[in-house]
């Protein structure tokens, strides 16, 4: 039943457009205008969440920003390709020199610096979250189970994949042994876990109110 009404509306609204794209042999990724808009709006949410006041968490030395929570949401709500595209779009804005990362940072230096791997890891992470979420979305069960799977997807992509790219980059770039680099990243783990839980719950909450097909 998920997204039945939504797909019908899209078929309805996008029919002429999709046909035209196929005719021109354009747009092999099969992105409709609505997809582009969803990607851009989620990129805007990612940027906006870097600007809203940070949530101080007692006992944590680093401020918690909501930016990577929004990245997880992009994957979990839009699906793999659109979620990764939304995140990549934010990185494009970083590259062209807009201060869209949390704390008003931006520019090519952010992408090329020691923590650049985490930023690229966001893109891959959003994809993996979306991919898992699409698979888990078919599972029906009690609330705890659906919530659990949604959170699991966010942890796997938002932490697993992101760290898997960020830590080796950090190690490679700095010549640090891998385990030392991993130790450094550990500071962020409690906050990131908390955010993965919130993202997983939000994603399921949104899907219950306003389901859209994961794409």
């Amino acid at each position, binding site marked *: 039943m998920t997204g039945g009404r939504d797909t019908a509306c899209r078929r309805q609204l996008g029919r002429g*457009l999709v046909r035209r794209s196929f005719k021109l042999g354009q747009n092999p990724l099969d992105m409709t*205008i609505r997809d582009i808009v969803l990607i851009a709006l989620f990129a*805007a949410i990612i940027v906006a969440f870097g600007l*809203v006041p940070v949530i101080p968490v007692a006992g944590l030395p680093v401020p918690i920003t909501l930016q990577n929570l929004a990245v997880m949401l992009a994957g979990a709500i839009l699906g793999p390709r659109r979620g990764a595209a939304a995140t990549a779009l934010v990185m494009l804005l970083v590259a062209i020199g807009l*201060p869209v990362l949390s704390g008003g*940072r931006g520019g090519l230096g952010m992408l090329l610096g020691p923590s650049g791997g985490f930023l690229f890891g966001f893109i891959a992470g959003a994809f993996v979250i979306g991919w898992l979420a699409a698979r888990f979305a078919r599972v029906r069960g009690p609330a705890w189970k659906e919530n659990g799977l949604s959170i699991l997807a966010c942890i796997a992509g938002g932490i697993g994949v992101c760290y898997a790219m960020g830590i080796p980059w950090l190690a490679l770039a700095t010549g640090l042994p891998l385990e030392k680099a991993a130790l450094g990243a550990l500071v962020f783990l409690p906050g990131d876990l908390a955010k993965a839980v919130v993202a997983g719950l939000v994603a399921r909450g949104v899907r219950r109110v306003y389901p859209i097909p994961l794409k």
Partner: protein
Amino acid sequence: MTAPLYSPGDSLLHRAPASAKLAGLVVLGTAVFLTADLALLLPAALAGVLLLAIVRPPRARLTRQLAGSAILIGLVALIAGLSQGWHQAAVVALRFSAIVLAALAVTLSTRAADMLEAIEALLAPLDRRGLVDSARIALAVSLVLRFVPDILGHYREIREAQAARGLDANPLALIVPLVVRTLKDADDIAAAIEARGFPPDRPGR
């Protein structure tokens, strides 16, 4: 808010084409990883300082952008120093200083629109093969800049509405309605874009 980091000026770097500056960064970024010789890395880092001096950005903007990087580079160098000796620490610190300073100089001296154009030119071969569509990318970039303030506004509205009902700040109750509202808006925005004739017919493609 999403005002670009670009700082207007008329320096050598401001006048250089964005594509050349991008190419220079790629060369520098590769070169500093090919050597661990301090006699080469120190001049590279100093060159970064020199580039920034040429661009002459406002001091406040400079410190804000550099502060985060400086802490990170210092931290990384410290760990490297403790575990692998101070020579490696100097290598790491100089390497990243060179990249970050040069990249910041490029960012501060290049208009976002010019940078976007350079990136589009870079993507042009992919565009011709139909793997990406630069018109759509440009549209998406504009849409993000257009809707960030609106989303911040919605965030504030929802928070106020919940405070008015005596609810505490609960991330779920805050973010779910925000996302749902955004998803609903997407239909209207897409319709508005289609209503104005996008994508344009491009004969011969």
